């Protein structure tokens, strides 16, 4: 019996588990700003996209599952879970599975840095902005690997296009937020939101906002930059040969990325959680995020696709130049001493 005295009793273990499960940190990580929120938001965005696109095209969209089809994403998810996972005969199955896992991990990773209220953020890191960009810069390699591992021509071409597109638009995106970094002198996303209490950054950084928004569209592979999965030429792009759960993960990852990008635009340019106080702060963040996402969706419904070489050239020359002009504007702003508005 003596040797058992050092061990915790069952009661203690249960208590410990209960304490962990009900702790604020655990709830944050698993439920609200954390995993479940991101997943459900992404699912909600698929529904939103289908509804909005249907309205644009004078259709009705999902209708039967739940109230006006809001449970449709869940029904789709359950359906896909029971589908057969088919891989083409020449494919590299192990690498594909690994890439699906990696894609999921990558897609969910940036969401930890998004602040949902004063002090209401999972990871309040000093390098939050760069962290988000660093994680986003890992997507092209995973997608290229999926295209490669599928060993089929459409996914491979889609993967290559995706790679070049994301690579070409990453630099304008980085440089377009440099103005904000200069104005606030920090990379901490919470502090960036706090700096916008008086005036949102969309006003002084309107050029940066335009560049960031365009680059975000390209990074998300959405119309007018949806070349990697141009339905009429490349079927489904790099997702062509995915099926069952891997397809679901690829799909979910894309919408998670949409959510993260919209939330990032909200945080950086649209004041994050700031807004009239009659609505709680996290609700403001979600509202703005979904608003930005629906603007992106409406753009999908109304613009044609551009050609690949034009796309790449525009990315390098025009957007880069605009981002540099934005930096000069910011330098002028600071030099004239107007930056007191955003200094904390």
């Amino acid at each position, binding site marked *: 019996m003596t040797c058992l005295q050092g061990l915790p009793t069952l009661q203690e273990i249960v208590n410990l588990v209960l304490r962990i499960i009900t702790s604020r940190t655990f709830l944050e990580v698993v439920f609200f700003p954390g995993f479940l929120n991101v997943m459900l938001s992404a699912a909600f965005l698929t529904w939103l996209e289908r509804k909005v696109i249907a309205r644009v095209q004078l259709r009705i969209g999902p209708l039967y599952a739940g109230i006006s089809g809001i449970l449709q994403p869940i029904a789709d998810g359950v359906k896909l879970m029971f589908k057969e996972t088919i891989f083409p005969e020449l494919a590299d199955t192990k690498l594909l599975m690994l890439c699906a896992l990696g894609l999921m991990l990558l897609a969910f990773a940036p969401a930890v840095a998004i602040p949902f209220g004063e002090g209401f953020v999972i990871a309040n890191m000093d390098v939050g902005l760069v962290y988000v960009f660093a*994680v986003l810069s*890992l997507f092209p*390699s995973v997608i290229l690997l999926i295209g490669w591992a599928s060993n089929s021509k459409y996914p491979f071409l889609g993967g290559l296009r995706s790679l070049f597109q994301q690579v070409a638009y990453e630099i304008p995106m980085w440089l377009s937020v440099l103005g904000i970094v200069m104005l606030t*002198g*920090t990379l901490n996303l919470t502090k960036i939101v706090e700096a916008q209490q008086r005036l949102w950054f969309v006003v002084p950084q309107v050029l940066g906002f335009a560049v960031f928004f365009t680059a975000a569209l390209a990074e998300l592979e959405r119309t007018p930059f949806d070349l990697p999965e141009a339905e009429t030429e490349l079927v489904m792009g790099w997702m062509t040969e995915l099926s069952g759960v891997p397809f679901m993960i690829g799909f979910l990852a894309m919408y998670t990325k949409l959510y993260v990008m919209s939330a990032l635009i909200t945080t950086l340019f649209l004041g994050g959680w700031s807004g009239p106080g009659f609505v709680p702060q996290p609700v403001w963040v979600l509202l703005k995020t979904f608003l930005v996402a629906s603007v992106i969706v409406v753009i999908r419904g109304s613009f044609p696709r551009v050609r690949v070489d034009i796309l790449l050239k525009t990315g390098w020359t025009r957007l880069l130049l605009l981002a540099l002009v934005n930096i000069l504007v910011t330098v002028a702003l600071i030099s004239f001493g107007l930056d007191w508005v955003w200094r904390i």
Partner: protein
Amino acid sequence: MPDIVFLTLSGLVIVSAIFALEARELIYGAVGLAFSLIGVAGLFILLGAEYLAMFQVSVYVGAVVVLILFTIMLVRRESGRIVEEEEPGRLGRAGILVAGLVALAVAGAVILVVPMSLEAPEFHGIPLRELGRYLASSYAVALVILGILIGATVVGGLTLVKVEREETNSGAAQ
């Protein structure tokens, strides 16, 4: 707790580094290299250099590994087999011997010079603003030289690719 983290990270770094060199497919090797570099970024975070870790991830894993993957995909024979004529044996054993000697020598020398169990001082992170200020003031010359290096890379890389394209187009290479 940090001990487990350190051991996991160093295990990741070492194992995936070996995998990078020994994997049969070159593509797997590149994936191994990516994991190794991510592990090094994790070590940087453990050492308090968060910004450096992000720099490492975005430049190494986000850019260099992508370029490596792309090059590997370009460097193939028509048959689809990766060009690789490995010849393990004498050379491999010699490599292990040399590498082991060098690693032992380096580790031994450094550990002899540095106090064995030097404790880390208290550290609460460095304000990132200081970093930029310091970088530009004390390392200005290095910065300008880096600018020249970057310029040389642009010119060199583009010229190489241009030459390559012209050769390919004229049919001289095939």
